[in-house]
């Protein structure tokens, strides 16, 4: 399913990888809170950019919710737009 690398041989030799899962689905989070910057920070890079869901395993629904939460947190300066 989630496969790193592009060559077709990688499909045969499945590298050992922990299966990614959506944390918010697993924990049944009722909603993602933009005020919870500690959680949000684990889904953004050091420079403040949001991580793609293919890296974090977040499902599409929660990735959308996460994006909104990050935007709100940035708006009110709880997170930065860009760390220099």
């Amino acid at each position, binding site marked *: 399913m989630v496969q790193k690398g592009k060559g077709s041989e990688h499909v045969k030799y499945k590298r050992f990888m922990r299966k990614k899962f959506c944390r918010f689905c697993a924990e049944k989070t*009722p*909603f993602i809170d933009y*005020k919870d910057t500690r959680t949000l920070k684990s889904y953004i890079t050091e420079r403040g950019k949001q991580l793609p869901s293919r890296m974090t395993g977040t499902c599409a629904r929660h990735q959308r919710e996460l994006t909104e939460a990050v935007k709100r947190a940035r*708006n*009110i*300066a*709880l*997170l930065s*737009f860009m760390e220099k």
Partner: protein
Amino acid sequence: MNYYENIVILDAALEDTGIDAAEKRITDLIEKQQGEVLKHERWGRRKLSYEINKHEKGYYLFFVFKSPPAAIKLLEELYKVFDPVFKFMIIKLRKKEIIALQNSLQAAEAKASAESAPETAKNDGAKNDAEVSAAPAGAVE
């Protein structure tokens, strides 16, 4: 009536009296519009993640309230002309957030009455007291 969440960032140089006054002005406006403040918190002075209007720090106020939509327009108008406020954000809560809010309010109320109850639980007179004190506590918070 809708549920809203509002963060206000005040000038960090403001004295405590100024913060009290700002907080009062905001809650007064909400209440005048038949709204009700359900929660208010002071997060205090924190460093902003980026500079806003040459401010590096700000004093964060956080409100959760119930009000008719018309109050929001008035609030926004107030913030635009109210000097100590240099940034604000008002968010309308959705169903799931409202449910979580109501649960947390109930839990807070239950905790408050549990704390005042134990020694007086058997005494009927005191029980009434606890009920009376529980109501305003819920309203203020």
